[in-house]
């Protein structure tokens, strides 16, 4: 796939094109790099689009006002969003919440109609086991998009693999904004007072796996999309920039490095496609997520390096990709933890003869 040919869709090419077209008009990278803190205005513009065009309802069943589509559609949306540096709690609201509604139901399911219309915005908080309890004070930082969240969803993945979830309205939270690494994602500290009542839900293993897998696939697709964008920008630059009387892209050192990025991204694309199918496992999703994170890391590093000093300057918006990669890679304990988990699950399956 070259910079000009469209990437193949995971689901419906028309959906993809529509999202691509809508976001292409609403991706003012320049606005982000011209303001110190970036975000807010653009976040609202992006969210308005995602609500009006029904993207936030992708996974929400039709009877709750959504589109009733599946994970492969989410993969398309998230890839295009990553490519265009979408700003807003899409993964939390449009992927995690419907997955919890399907796996646990209850209070999560009740939020679906408002989520499908874009009124509900979810902030996602990962906590340690010590924080789980009915009346404990919880303090989490950094929480993405906390400032605009209407609800927070808390996740605790215990070392023994037990997963529990909790929902809290933002009225119960104190929010203190913090400086964000990624200019497309405001972050804050979220404090929930000790007294507010709350209920932790522990879904069965199958449901827990499906919830986490959905989130991994969505994040992987975002990483893939931003990686693709960074690669396309870099191919453009090295094709135009001349040193020593020739385009720097003609030097084999550069060709090889970009070929490696292309290869890594293509592998990630296949893995995401595989993990977004019905019947794919959580392990499939974790592998897709790791492959996408590695490809995005490689590509964003190459993008900066091959732009020379230009890549290191703020006005040249390439750092937005690097910083987005950093933020997304750190989620769910980081790629490193996922790699260890993937390795453990593979090794165990070999030793214990599990399929």
């Amino acid at each position, binding site marked *: 796939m070259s910079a000009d040919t469209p990437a193949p869709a995971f689901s419906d090419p028309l959906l993809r094109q529509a999202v691509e077209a809508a976001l292409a008009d609403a991706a003012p990278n320049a606005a982000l790099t011209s303001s110190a803190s970036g975000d807010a205005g653009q976040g609202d513009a992006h969210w308005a689009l995602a609500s009006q065009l029904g993207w936030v309802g992708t996974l929400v069943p039709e009877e709750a006002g959504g589109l009733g589509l599946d994970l492969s559609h989410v993969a398309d949306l998230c890839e295009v969003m990553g490519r265009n540096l979408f700003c807003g709690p899409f993964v939390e609201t449009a992927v995690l919440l419907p997955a919890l509604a399907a796996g646990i139901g209850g209070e999560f399911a009740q939020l679906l109609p408002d989520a499908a219309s874009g009124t509900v915005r979810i902030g996602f908080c990962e906590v340690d086991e010590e924080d789980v309890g009915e009346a404990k004070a919880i303090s989490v930082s950094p929480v993405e998009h906390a400032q605009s969240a209407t609800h927070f969803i808390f996740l605790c993945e215990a070392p023994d693999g037990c997963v529990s979830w909790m929902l809290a309205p933002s009225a119960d939270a104190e929010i203190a904004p913090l400086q964000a690494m990624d200019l497309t994602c405001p972050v804050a500290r979220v404090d929930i007072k000790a007294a507010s009542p709350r209920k932790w839900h522990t879904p069965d293993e199958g449901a827990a796996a499906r919830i986490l897998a959905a989130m991994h696939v969505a994040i992987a697709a975002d990483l893939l999309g931003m990686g693709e964008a960074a690669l396309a920008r870099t191919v453009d630059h090295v094709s135009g920039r001349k040193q*020593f009387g020739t385009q720097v892209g003609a030097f084999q050192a550069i060709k090889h490095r970009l070929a490696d990025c292309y290869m890594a991204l293509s592998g990630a694309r296949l893995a995401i496609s595989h993990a977004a199918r019905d019947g794919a496992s959580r392990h499939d999703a974790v592998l897709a997520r790791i492959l996408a994170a590695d490809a995005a890391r490689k590509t964003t590093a190459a993008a900066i390096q091959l732009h020379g000093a230009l890549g290191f*300057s703020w*006005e040249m918006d390439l750092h937005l990709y690097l910083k987005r990669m950093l*933020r997304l*890679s*750190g989620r769910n304990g980081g790629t490193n933890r996922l790699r260890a988990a993937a390795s453990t699950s593979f090794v165990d399956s070999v030793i214990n003869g599990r399929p």
Partner: protein
Amino acid sequence: MNNAEFRSERIAEAPDFLGAEADGEFRNGLREWLARELPRVAGDLIGTAALHSVEFRRKWEDHLCCAGLSGLGWPRELGGHSLPLGKQAIFHEECARAGAPLAVNMIGHGIVAPTIIAYGSAEQKRRFLPSILDNSQVWCQGYSEPGAGSDLAAIATRAERRGDVYVVNGQKIWTSFANIADQCLLLVRTTLDGAPRKGISVLLADMHLPGVSVRPIRQITGEADFNEVFFDNVEVPADCRLGEENAGWKIAMDAANYERSTYFVPRIVRMQAELEALVRLAAGTRRRGRTAIDDPAIRSAIGELHINLHALRLYADRILEMAEQGVPPGVDGSSVKLLWSESHQRLFELAMEILGPDAALGPQEISAPAQGRWGRDFLWTKAETVLAGTSEIHRNIIAERGLGLPR
């Protein structure tokens, strides 16, 4: 030449340890001095990110210089201390260990001064060296241009001789610290005839001359330490030309050699302290019932960095030895630059992995671990494989000049 000419009013008698014969004694004396002076000068800034702000870096550098701790390697007759490079390395090592910030005027001390000492006239030495010694003048290095980055010989900034001045017109870019610099080691084209390398000269240009304008460029760290510099009919006195007219290419290449031997040593020795800080970060980061340092992947990555650092240190020692004998580092200089910059990048990538979700905190967020320094330095290391010759260019040098592969 008389030492007195080079003595600045601002400079106090150097501390006693500087005269110590034995390395151990030198090291201990310095360590005590730093343990006393750094907290005294830094006050409340100790342990904060502000210790690494340009303002404090400059203040600390002024303090070192005025305490007589500059010109460590310069000849005594030029106001220096003639310290062997080994002792200079110890100096940088102890500064790093004490947590002192990097210098700001490193271009002045590490690159310009040795170049002036090698190529300057007696008059130029008298004019420029004392103000480097006491740090009253900051230098920048005006090499790169929009059309001449890796291909430095393509510079187009023109200097035309008119009577006793050179009239300079053109533009430099990415010039570090030009916004605070008083002087510039400026590469200009003095003739359009012949091969591009044969028409380049070096000027020691006053940044306050009429016609010089500076526009800061913001970096991905959020700071703005590099700049565009415009020269519009700037009249630089002809006696500010360093070396012969049209012989600037060799001077620039020699300056790069100084860069590789003296400029990078402080950075290499700092990495040891940084790796130790990383180990402590991993030991103090607990998530999901587990401490990061117990993660075998993190241990193995730390092990790899430790091994690289060992090799790097030996490389650096070798380059120092060569420099002491007046041998330019050549291809080994490229190896050191590559190994240093790429290991340094890896070190901070690893820090980001250890930080996990905290990596989403900004480089100036003071509630972040180390007040955001890990994130800031992670971003900064992206520059290190580009400045002072990109990794690609250094690999070409090793392959072509080291291995003799065809160009």
